[in-house]
């Protein structure tokens, strides 16, 4: 039975006097990271919820103005740190669009595999941690077990488990090896069992369903006008997915479905995420079996990535190549223009607006974080529901404070 959604803006001052204020955070186990909510409560019913953010503001966009296009990838990694590679892919997608670089087929496929692995990675944490907040510890461990294996896949490709810094302008840090391909195949083979275990623990769990169904309703109109994207918008009936609507990387080559739901509540957002994990696995399976051979850098666009170390140490050409990549006055020039480019990150549309003044670094590197727009809708989703629903709604929109505050 859905609760009647109240509008706190229409409250008179005498009605407001009866409310009491509760500070939720900035250090609360269910906020996961540092964010604060100021709740206005009538008994246990939330009349208004005002988010107070900025505790993790670290000036990433300012740093983007002094680091070059390849160096800044280490910073974008740290924005949404539960799917770092998705940020890297989005950032270099924008840079490559600005510079007009086409990727090689092999690079496109590897990036697509990683983008989808990151989607699984992100959704597993979002689902697992929310179930944990709602009282189910077991499912969380099942989710983290699979995440651990994805970390190993990242480590095998880039040498880093967490902040991989794997993509480069026009290519990748290293090419993948045969044992990496074997690892991804093994993941595709083993994951469905873990997925079924996890889904069996959660999706028909009576407590979980009762705590999330008809909670945190977001209408389609509110989702669109509020800038919601990704699973949050798709759970409210918006059928938009940048992977099919503005195809980038190799998404045109694969057969997959866009997952949507109609009800717009927390449970729908979880359902969409669960279905998306399945579709992502489908994409990975198709991509890994059809992985093209060939170079990972497109030689037609010249020296955008660092050469292999063996070349640098053993040949003068390699050393010159390395030098020209590193020295700011020798790097390739970018057009003096501005571009907005976005990818479908696990959380929604992750866009970058890059303004260039001709150098190989951004004059302005604006991030359009999906979390920011989703969190601004939080008070709309929360009004009229109970205090105990706060953690369910917070978990279902997957707020990452580092991305929120940058």
């Amino acid at each position, binding site marked *: 039975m859905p609760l009647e959604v109240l509008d706190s803006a229409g409250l008179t001052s005498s009605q407001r006097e009866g409310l009491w204020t509760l500070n939720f955070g900035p250090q609360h186990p269910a906020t996961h990271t540092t964010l604060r909510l100021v709740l206005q409560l009538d008994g246990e019913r939330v009349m208004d919820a005002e988010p107070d953010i900025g505790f993790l*503001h670290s000036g990433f*966009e300012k740093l983007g103005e002094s680091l070059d296009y390849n160096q800044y990838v280490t910073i974008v990694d740290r924005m949404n740190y539960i799917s770092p590679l998705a940020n890297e892919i989005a950032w270099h997608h924008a840079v490559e*669009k600005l510079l*007009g670089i086409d990727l090689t087929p092999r690079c496109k496929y590897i990036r697509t595999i990683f983008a989808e692995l990151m989607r699984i990675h992100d959704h597993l944490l979002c689902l697992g941690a929310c179930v944990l907040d709602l009282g189910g510890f077991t499912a969380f461990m099942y989710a983290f077990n699979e995440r651990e294996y994805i970390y190993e896949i990242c480590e095998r490709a880039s040498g880093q488990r967490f902040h991989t810094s794997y993509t480069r302008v026009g290519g990748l840090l290293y090419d993948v090896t045969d044992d990496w391909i074997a690892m991804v195949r093994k993941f595709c083979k083993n994951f469905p069992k873990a997925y079924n275990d996890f889904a069996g623990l959660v999706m028909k769990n009576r407590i979980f369903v009762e705590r999330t169904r008809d909670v945190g309703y977001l209408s389609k109109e509110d989702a669109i*006008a509020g800038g919601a994207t990704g699973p949050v918008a798709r759970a409210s009936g918006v059928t938009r997915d940048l992977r099919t609507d503005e195809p980038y990387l190799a998404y045109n080559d694969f057969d997959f479905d866009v997952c949507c739901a109609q009800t717009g509540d927390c449970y729908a957002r979880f359902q969409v995420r669960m279905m998306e994990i399945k579709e992502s696995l489908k994409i990975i399976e198709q991509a890994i079996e059809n992985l093209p051979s060939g170079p990972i850098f497109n030689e037609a666009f010249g020296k955008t990535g660092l050469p292999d170390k063996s070349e640098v140490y053993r040949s003068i050409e390699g050393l010159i190549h390395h030098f020209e990549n590193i020295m700011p006055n020798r790097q390739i020039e970018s057009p003096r223009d501005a571009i907005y480019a976005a990818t479908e990150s696990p959380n929604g549309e992750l866009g970058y607006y890059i303004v260039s003044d001709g150098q190989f670094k951004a004059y302005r590197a604006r991030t359009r974080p999906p979390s920011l727009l989703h*969190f601004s809708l939080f008070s709309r989703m929360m009004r009229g529901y109970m205090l105990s629903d706060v953690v369910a709604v917070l978990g279902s929109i997957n707020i990452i404070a580092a991305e929120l505050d940058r």
Partner: protein
Amino acid sequence: MVFTSKEVLATQLPRIATVWSEFRDQQRVVVDAGSVYEVLRCLRDKAGFDQLTDLTAVDHLEMDGATDRFEVVYCLLNIESGERVIVRTFLNEPDLKLRSATSIWHGADWLERECYDMFGIVFEGHPNFKRLLLPQEFASFPLRKDYPQQGRGERHNFPVITRAES
């Protein structure tokens, strides 16, 4: 892709001067700061741009050949057709004011507050206009180009509240 926004603006608001450009299949339009609100309203109501994807600003202080100091950028999206348009406008000190777009898309709320927080651009008519990320007493606008990357020592001068005082 079929672009409709250009024709819609030309027929609905013929008196407003617009400068169109295109870069890598992305259409942009520059309009006067005074008519931005009207243009955005027209694009929402008549051309179906129902989502404000992003709103940000750029400080052109150190850009060679730039004539105006600030640029405010609105990225709009038509969910139905997938068409995007970027509306840009230029502002100069001391008149850093624009009419708030919150009455067109409520998603503009936090984006405008962040824009003020980082660049000091004021959006008039915003229902809850204050800083979004930085403390309310913060005195400068850090994404402006004349603000040093290391900051101005704010962090070291924050008042320290002891447990006894709190």
